[in-house]
């Protein structure tokens, strides 16, 4: 259906080159390879707020996982100049000032770099749906198309893992599991990063992802497809 989509998109506007290249990469995506054969880009965004209509991405942090380990040599950290530069309630959280944003590049410049950085990797994030929404909203607006990389939600992955562990020890269950990134970090006793910085949050998520994927791998899950079938924890877009 590629020709159709392209044709259809072309009626309105030709998508950016980065988007076209991205589509090529995922033309036929194979889910049956071992997990270690995939690249993953764990990313996090900082937003001006959570209003799906009004708010925008102002920062992307990402690290690459190759061969199931994090490579510090390929990290991505960029600010994006939003349309509206006024400080918002979120400024207090991420501490990115309007001055810093004024110097940043625009989405139309940053996003192609990010798409290029991602290559054919799967995207990983915590509550990744929100990040994907704003990312794609920005891509659509700035580049005229959506990105095709499938995404993985570490929150769902964690839920699958924790639920898989139950029925242990007398079926002793804990109903009060919190799936916030900070709480999972604590639960699994992971090293801590500075919260509310896109790169550090991406690192924190990457640690969580590495932890879960390796723990689940020990439990016999070897390929992407198996992981998908095991928990329906994947969110393929």
């Amino acid at each position: 259906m590629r020709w159709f989509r392209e044709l259809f998109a072309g009626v309105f506007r030709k998508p950016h080159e980065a988007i076209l290249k991205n589509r090529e990469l995922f033309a036929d995506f194979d889910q049956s390879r071992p997990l270690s054969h995939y690249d993953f880009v764990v990313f996090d965004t900082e937003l001006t707020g959570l209003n799906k209509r009004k708010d925008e991405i102002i920062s992307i942090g990402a690290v690459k996982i190759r061969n199931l380990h994090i490579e510090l040599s390929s990290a991505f950290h960029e600010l994006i100049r939003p349309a509206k530069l006024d400080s918002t309630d979120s400024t207090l959280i991420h501490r990115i000032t309007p001055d810093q944003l004024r110097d940043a590049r625009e989405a139309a410049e940053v996003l192609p770099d990010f798409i290029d950085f991602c290559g054919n990797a799967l995207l990983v994030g915590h509550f990744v749906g929100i990040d994907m929404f704003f990312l794609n909203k920005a891509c659509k607006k700035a580049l005229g198309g959506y990105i095709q990389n499938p995404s993985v939600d570490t929150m769902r992955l964690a839920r699958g893992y924790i639920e898989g562990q139950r029925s242990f020890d007398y079926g002793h269950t804990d109903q009060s599991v919190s799936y916030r990134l900070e709480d999972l970090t604590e639960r699994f006793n992971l090293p801590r990063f500075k919260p509310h910085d896109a790169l550090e949050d991406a690192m924190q998520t990457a640690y969580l992802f590495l932890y879960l994927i390796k723990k689940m791998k020990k439990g016999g899950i070897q390929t992407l497809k198996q992981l998908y079938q095991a928990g329906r924890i994947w969110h393929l877009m």
Partner: protein
Amino acid sequence: MPKGTEGVHSVSPEVVLLFLKKTIPFNELDDETLQNIARHIIIDFYPKGTVLFKQDETEVEYLYIIQKGGMKIYLKDEEGNITLKDFRGEGAYVGALPIIQGTKANLNVETVEDTFCFLLPKDVFLNLVQSHSRITQYFLKSFSEKFIRTAYRELRHRNMVPRTEGTLYLFSARVRDVIKKEPEFIDASRPVQDAARRMADLHIGSLLVSAGSETGIVTDKDLRTKVVAEGRELSTPVSDIMTSPVATINANAVCFDALLTMMKHQIHHLAVEDDGRIIGVITAHDIMVLQGSSPLYLFREIVAQRTIEGLYPLSQKVPLVVRTLIEEGAKANNITRMITILNDHILDRLLTLLMDKMGTPPVQFCWLLLGSEGRKEQTFRTDQDNALVYVTPENEHLAVQAEEYFREFAEAAIEHLENCGYPRCPGDVMASNPRWRAPYPKWEGYFDHWIDSPEPLEVLHASIFFDFRSGFGDASMAEKLRDHIVERSERQQIYMLHMARDYLSRRVPLSFFKNFIVEKNGEHKNKLDIKHKGLTPIVNFARILSLKHGIRETNTISRLQALADKGHIAEELCSMATDAYELQMQMRFVHQLGQLEAGIQPDNYIDPGKLSDLEKQMLKDAFAVIERLQGVLKSIFPAI
């Protein structure tokens, strides 16, 4: 604004840099070099139990710096025997030596916790070592130091001290404490026959000789070689065969010095001098006895005693036996069992001799052991916890007689036991207390009360009673009482809820950040009460489930095993709990033995700062098990 695409490396997360900045030896590097290193780093996660290096097999491609978690390093010989070499925790690294030497992994490395590592590629690391003299120095120095440290730790791992362990006692025991009797003198002018007769009468091998202002010595060896072998007259004066002046040793010298002096002069007797006065003689035999402490030897000594007073010093020898056992690598459960057997024998002998003295009791009775004695889990100097049950006397007259006899019997027994070195129970749970010395039906009544109409506090105090076993006398009475409790417990389980509620209110001694919870104030500040925080929860867990499931065992490990055998708990949980229990018992033994040998009253307060990383690690694992046991308890008694 840095442009963050692949290949442009200037965005290493702050956390990674901060970590390297406080990690030796990377903290020696300037910021630019650190940034440079950081960008080559790979981060990986190894679940607990992952083997990173295999000895002589693995090509080491990275220096592994531990960000979080821990690893054990071990050697495996051809027979598959494993020798633990070291434990590495946060900020430590593995792989440096093989990279520098260009060899395969020289040891096995396995993660003992979920572990995150920073991996520094081989060539980057080598480059660093070659270009930064401080780093070079560090690694060269650390190799030699590490070898020494490892050797030392291995010793510790083999229970503190070298294998010829008895020798260590030689360094602490003073000559003064070993000599038994006042010195025996004979005048130098007396005939040798008198000397021989005196020695035979006193069962000793030597006499000191008063020869004017000098002191000499005559030994049985002198009689053998200088009188009998040479065919001298029995009237020969002692002065002809004595050695004078006698070799002496100061009373405050340690036994090791005495042994050295004897070896140097090839003699077996030394006069012990205190303030210029001779206070006794120490012999090679005395020192050998000090060393030789086989359980069998002690056992024979106990059984051979003809007087109660003769038993008094024997219980003091138990620690010596235990030391030998620990050296031999005995598990804590075997050690406690050995102590139990020895103590049981002392009790048996003591009560038998007491009965000989007092005459046959008017009715049959059973001496009950409670608490840790009842569970066969004694360590050194356990407080007395005992009680007495006897057959209901047939008539009033016999009842008065029995009351009188057992009062006297129990009071005497408790006092003798105290003299043997078993302190009285501070809570007065002893047979000398009239409440805990009663005819059988009264005992059923006590337990019925605790089981049926429990006052929470009362039930807790009664916990140690539920661990009773027969110590002496008619064991069938103890069995009958146990039957009664098993049957009763099946119908009535409310009292267990009280126990469970209390057990669950005790916190596992690991804080939020996985450090130990230690005492906050007082004499034992910053120390860990291993008995109450670590052992008691496991004992409690085993007790309550055993009561619930009608298991008659009282020993904690036997209880756990019985629970697993009958499918009440998972086999895995049983073995984890057993390991945790034994490990802590072992630590407690080593700790208490150290105190005993330093002349300190043994206690249960361990200083976590003095444990090796490995010991800390193992202790933390043990506490994690306790948390799990509490979770299980919570799910079994959900009403709490």
